[in-house]
């Protein structure tokens, strides 16, 4: 019996809130072994999150020299290691870290970094070098590869009104929806429903056939995803924000055993040129609380082993603070992997080098495409050179 059927048949769909946790675990314990798929959740921090005030090198004098008023005083840092600690707003991420569920990668970037938001985001999405312009994204090309289940229209879902480049392939694309109910509304046009049913997916490869096929599959997916979203109602407290709501939707869809392997969620507003502290810490808290709720939720369902959360931002920020108590666009940044199957929880590599800078910016030590390569190879069992264009060495990150 699939998770979804179980929840249905036990009449829990509407009363899931009242199910004792032990019952959940008892029942799901058997089910989860039948679950074969690993889940990848990508969280994008848009605007360029200031990595140096996220993971703070609180023992480094240079850090305080570069950031006389913006640096976080050592006594406020949530210390987890002799050199580095978390921003005080990341309390709920620190607790995941303490449970061995977080790997922090420092100084992640790429050669010849671009400091434009759009361009750098493009590079992270497409996984191209900074000299190339690719029209497809790394996860889109994963969908193009002959992976199991990739033909399902909602194999990769982005919680947004429009789809990011990361999820666009040449043949297949991910699926965008801000929420299942909203998606369902866009497919309720009676006339479109009628012609969608009248012209089922054709094998024809021309553009018109593609439009009909996409329309019909969106219509049927919308119903499926809407139903899936009602199977399980999480009782965990998520932040009352769109980001929190998105993560809750993800947890609910995963728990309902939805045929989706990849979820893509964004949190925006990290472009902190002025008065950074308040804004960044508000966002970091939202991020940490949201992820903590997600992890708690999935853990209760016994699904944490099968989940990997990758968090990135298009670039970090300038090492020196600017005159407005903010920071300008920078280069290399930290990246988080969170989940129950990490090989090396904790800090994967040393803190960023603040002595050797390139035009006042950090020099990257790990290419982000090596992280993608690791995730593709070891988590999604995909063929890396096909997807990334060449074989970036995998890192010892996953079990």
């Amino acid at each position, binding site marked *: 019996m699939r998770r979804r059927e179980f929840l249905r048949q036990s009449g829990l769909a509407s009363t899931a809130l009242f199910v004792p946790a032990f019952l959940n675990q008892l029942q799901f314990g058997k089910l989860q072994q039948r679950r074969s798929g690993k889940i990848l959740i990508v969280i994008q921090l848009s605007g360029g999150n200031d990595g140096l005030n996220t993971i703070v090198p609180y023992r480094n004098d240079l850090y305080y020299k570069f950031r006389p008023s913006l640096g976080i005083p050592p006594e406020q840092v949530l210390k987890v290691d002799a050199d580095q600690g978390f921003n005080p707003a990341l309390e709920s991420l620190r607790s995941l870290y303490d449970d061995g569920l977080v790997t922090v990668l420092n100084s992640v970037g790429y050669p010849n970094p671009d400091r434009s938001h*759009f*361009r750098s985001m*493009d590079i992270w999405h497409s996984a191209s070098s900074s*000299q190339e*312009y690719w*029209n497809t994204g790394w996860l889109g090309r994963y969908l193009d590869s002959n992976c199991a289940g990739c033909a399902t*229209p909602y194999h990769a879902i982005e919680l947004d*009104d*429009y*789809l990011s*480049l990361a999820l*666009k392939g040449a043949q297949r*694309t*991910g*699926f*965008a*929806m*801000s929420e299942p109910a*909203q998606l369902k*509304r*866009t*497919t*309720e*046009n*009676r*006339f*479109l429903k*009628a*012609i969608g049913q*009248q*012209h089922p997916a054709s094998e024809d490869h*021309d*553009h*018109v056939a*593609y*439009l*009909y096929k*996409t*329309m019909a*599959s*969106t219509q049927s*997916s919308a119903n499926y995803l809407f139903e899936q979203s009602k199977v399980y109602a999480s009782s965990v407290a998520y932040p009352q924000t769109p980001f929190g709501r998105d993560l809750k939707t993800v947890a609910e869809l995963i728990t309902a055993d939805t045929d989706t392997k990849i979820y893509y969620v964004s949190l925006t507003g990290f472009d902190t*040129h*002025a008065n950074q502290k308040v804004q960044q810490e508000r966002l970091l808290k939202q991020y940490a609380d949201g992820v903590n709720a997600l992890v708690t939720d999935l853990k209760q369902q016994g699904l944490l082993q099968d989940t990997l959360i990758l968090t990135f931002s298009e670039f970090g920020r300038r090492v020196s603070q*600017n*005159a*407005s108590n*903010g920071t300008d666009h920078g280069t290399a940044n930290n990246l988080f992997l969170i989940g129950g199957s990490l090989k090396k929880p904790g800090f994967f590599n040393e803190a960023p080098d603040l002595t050797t800078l390139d035009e006042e910016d950090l020099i990257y030590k790990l290419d982000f495409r090596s992280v993608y390569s690791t995730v593709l190879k070891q988590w999604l069992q995909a063929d890396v050179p096909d997807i990334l264009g060449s074989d970036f060495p995998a890192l010892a990150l996953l079990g």
Partner: protein
Amino acid sequence: MPLRKAVDELFSQARKPTLLPVPELDLPSEPRMLDREQIQERQRMERQRVLESNFSWLQRMANPQEPALLERMTLFWHGHFACDIDNSVLAAQYLNTLRSHALGKFRDLVVAIAREPAMIRYLNNQQNRKDQPNENFARELLELFTIGRGNYTETDIKEGARAFTGWSSTLRGEYIFRPGQHDYDRKTFFGKTGNFDGTDIIDLILERKETALFIVKKIYRYFVNETGPEERIHALAQEFYASGYDISRLMQTIFGSDWFYLPENMGNKIKSPVELLAGMIRSLGLQFEDGLGAVFIQRALGQVLFHPPNVAGWPGGKSWIDNSTLMTRLNLPTIFLASAEANLRPKDDLTVKERSAGLRRLKATYDLQPFSRLIRQNDPEAALNSLREYLLQKESAVDNATIRQYIQATEPGAFLAQSIMRIMSLPEYQMC
């Protein structure tokens, strides 16, 4: 020869492009006195003005009084010489440049673009100085604007960049050549050596026939078909080269050819979001309550004027379509003609209340008067046929009987509105 005559007319309309007045750049008298927040506030206001420029351009494209060919050509060059612009003065200048040369000589267009302050800033040519060359512009000039990959070396890029040193812009947004930053030494480009400057480099690139082929291929893909017979494209490229890169003549040849009108070349391309939107505004006589609504649609559909995703422009074709953009496209007629639908059963279609915040901005009025001549006769079947013929570039597989099941109105005005709404909702309406 009626076809030739019609094509000639198309071109004579487009001969004299009317240019936009370029607004005075709003410069602070003491720029250094501005603090960071004031600068950011100014930037925000500028971005707002660019959105207004966006909307006025869109309306111009949709205006039946404007020469349609020139507008389409200008949009094409915007995607080709893709440039992200955050300043309304630079945007107006850039657009005037595109429009002035859109149907002129390709060389003039390339030279003008190389001197366009918006492009100079976008591709960092202000930082391209003798002692510290910046290759960004030279690289894209070769790779994306003229000859295409595989026809040049990294050395050509480096040497080319030296020739464009000192091509800069002033604070006021005017082109300026800074002799002190220019590298006057000898350069070797495409195997030739000389004291080349930027225009020499452009001439050397245009001397190569591969450049004509690269441009013709792109134009063919955009205006005719994503694929086409090799010999035809090579013949067009040959002619384009021989004419001294005369864009107007190339387009006249294309539109004057019988093959252009073959069924396989009609309605085979997916409209870009801007083409779709401009077409709907034109056909429906839409007047937006708030121009930002029209910009919002561009964003939701993945093409915002003045904001291409990167210097390679919009990839186009199938990449316009994903589940979300398609459903938005297909629902637009219902949104615009909502009052027509409201006469039916408002609950099960998209209604204003249920739409997300952005779509609420889409309040627009429409004017279907021009259509009424199409359905003078009191014959619904004939009316539908006329509307289909007028609105669809590609015949739809959905028959009139199916469409008529979703038209309840009998009163002529409401019937017209509902018919148009249904026909525009057909996936085939997305094709051009």
